[in-house]
């Protein structure tokens, strides 16, 4: 017998799951990404490098800047271009905006209704209007950063190989400095709220992240050593889903806010670090549902870091100089932490600057096996114990904890 979950709600994109029951027991769970394939690597193949980050942005609206930045870094590495600190700080500011926008969307609008027992945040707002407003304020500030750095709230084209179309003004940076400080109080409240949730889903055994907090040259995991993705991560196609599944040394693994905190807590800002220590024991159990709490702590990190960056840039002043980019034959990988976890853009570029090979692996594809493992564990515990409706409700919450981004996951290609 197969229990079909209907399409997931309050997640980005179109997905569902099937629970396979045999002899009265849960035998298997299949996560089906039913969003149509989007063929991004084919789209960028043969195209001039300069246009590619803007196209890759369209992979996902919630994290478009992560895609543009990963793309830009991959391209710059292929050409051997180095950019000065001013540019890296601004990119970081943009990615922080994306963390704020994406995490607050997830926590306040998609997860909080589960906590308070509502079908959505709009209906929740009648009783918990303050909370919804706080979430929207954080989200709007995140979007403000995306406008300043990225050029628009969604799919801006301001992030370019070698720099930016436009650099922020002093007034914009001052506003960022002020706002980030003012909003910190709200983010700390979010940590208190999400720390109360009971654990559910599976416990992750393996974690993978970039070696810097928001991007890196290499990857790290719960095991010693730095590595490139091709050394430990393997992808395969599934017959029942448009997303491929990745494994770390053959096993399911986890990317996202919780893995970042567990692997990189020493890189956090002061308050975020304190909050991490306060909840360390819980987080270290590795329950995937603590990803929600980890995201709340990252809201605090993001605001503190945005404040630091704005201060630094105001102190030293903005030069607004782009680095010249000369195309040459080469290969480069951009590793970025998207809000949902590790994002990989890998390119080979020919000597006229056109893309000859591209491989993109998104966080949701990397987490695919871990989501299935969590659903399986949860279904085994609940099947026969609670009625089917409640079981399915809990399974949906388990999926939601990963904050999956399904649109992202459906265009993986090896050519």
């Amino acid at each position: 017998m197969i229990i079909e979950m209907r399409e997931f709600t309050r997640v980005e994109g179109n997905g569902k799951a099937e629970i396979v029951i045999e002899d009265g027991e849960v035998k298997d769970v299949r996560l089906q990404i039913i969003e149509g394939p989007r063929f991004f690597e084919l789209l960028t193949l043969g195209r001039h490098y300069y246009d590619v980050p803007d196209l890759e942005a369209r992979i996902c609206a919630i994290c478009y800047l992560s895609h543009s930045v990963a793309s830009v870094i991959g391209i710059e590495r292929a050409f051997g271009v180095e950019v000065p600190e001013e540019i890296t700080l601004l990119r970081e500011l943009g990615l922080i905006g994306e963390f704020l926008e994406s995490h607050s969307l997830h926590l306040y609008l998609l997860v909080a209704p589960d906590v308070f027992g509502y079908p959505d945040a709009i209906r929740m707002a009648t009783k918990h209007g303050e909370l919804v407003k706080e979430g929207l304020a954080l989200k709007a500030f995140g979007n403000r950063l995306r406008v300043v750095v990225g050029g628009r709230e969604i799919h801006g084209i301001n992030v370019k190989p070698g720099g930016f179309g436009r650099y922020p003004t002093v007034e914009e940076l001052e506003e960022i400095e002020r706002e980030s400080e003012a909003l910190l109080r709200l983010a700390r409240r979010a940590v208190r709220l999400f720390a109360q949730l009971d654990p559910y889903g599976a416990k992750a055994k393996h974690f993978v992240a970039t070696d810097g907090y928001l991007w890196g040259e290499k990857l790290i995991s719960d095991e010693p050593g730095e590595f490139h993705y091709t050394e430990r991560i393997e992808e395969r196609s599934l017959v029942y889903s448009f997303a491929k599944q990745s494994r770390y040394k053959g096993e399911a693994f986890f990317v996202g806010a919780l893995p970042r905190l567990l692997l990189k807590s020493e890189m956090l800002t002061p308050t975020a670090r304190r909050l991490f220590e306060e909840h360390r024991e819980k987080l270290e159990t590795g329950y995937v549902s603590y990803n929600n709490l980890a995201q709340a702590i990252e809201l605090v990190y993001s605001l503190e870091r945005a404040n630091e960056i704005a201060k630094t840039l105001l102190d030293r002043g903005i030069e607004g100089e782009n680095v010249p980019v000369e195309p040459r034959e080469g290969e480069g990988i951009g590793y970025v932490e998207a809000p949902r976890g590790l994002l990989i853009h890998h390119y080979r570029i020919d000597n006229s600057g056109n893309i000859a090979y591209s491989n993109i692996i998104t966080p949701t594809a990397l987490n695919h096996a871990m989501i299935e493992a969590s659903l399986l564990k949860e279904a085994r515990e609940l099947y026969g114990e609670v009625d089917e409706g409640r079981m399915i409700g809990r399974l949906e919450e388990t999926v939601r904890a990963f904050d999956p981004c399904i649109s992202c996951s459906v265009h993986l290609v090896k050519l």
Partner: protein
Amino acid sequence: MMDKLKLGVFELTDCGGCALNILFLYEKLFDLLEFYEITEFHMATSLSEGNHYDVALVTGTVSTQRDLNLLKEARNHSEYLIALGTCATHGSVQGSVELPIREKLKAVYGDGGDPMRALDSKPVVEYVAVDFALPGCPYDKEEVYQVLMDIAKGIEPVRKDYPVCLECKLNEYECVLVKRGLPCLGPITYGGCKAVCVRSGLGCIGCRGPLPGEVNPASEYEILKSLGYDDEYIIRKFKTFAGWEP
């Protein structure tokens, strides 16, 4: 008080941006909710109670059999259907990958399965009649607000009829095409975005699709050629969002 209009948001295959942009309306979303009740919007709510919609917003391309079924359901059960965003109106980026679907699937997934019956990505407007088409990748959120408010007040929303160029002039942005020789599709692209990319000193990449009517793609083509861009580059640029043949 009058009954609220029933609003459904249907997301086919896309990046989620056109649906997300509705949530980015913030307080204005609450203004809209004075007139509308959202009865289907799976990114935002677990409720799904509609079988009739006064207004249906459909985002994305038809890329699977599931998308097509959902689109037909939205059309059959709605009074006023809006194709929202360049995916829905012109196919946007995923619609511009030209290989036949079999070959695309093989290139990406090998000989594996085709679980949901993939179709070549096509805009919504190729399958059903729509009552209004609002392009943009994504559209400007003020626009969707205006359109929904107009409908709520019984006014037929108006389509803009000017290119991005005009918005540069209104905002006094320096012309990047003439002054800096950047490949800018502003002269032939459907305006309404406040020329936000030119504000960043960058050329318009045509994300809102072509302005119908009087624009002159041939002359744009000539300008880009005279700036030294080769045919293949120009053609691909033209095709990216709207499968546009120069």
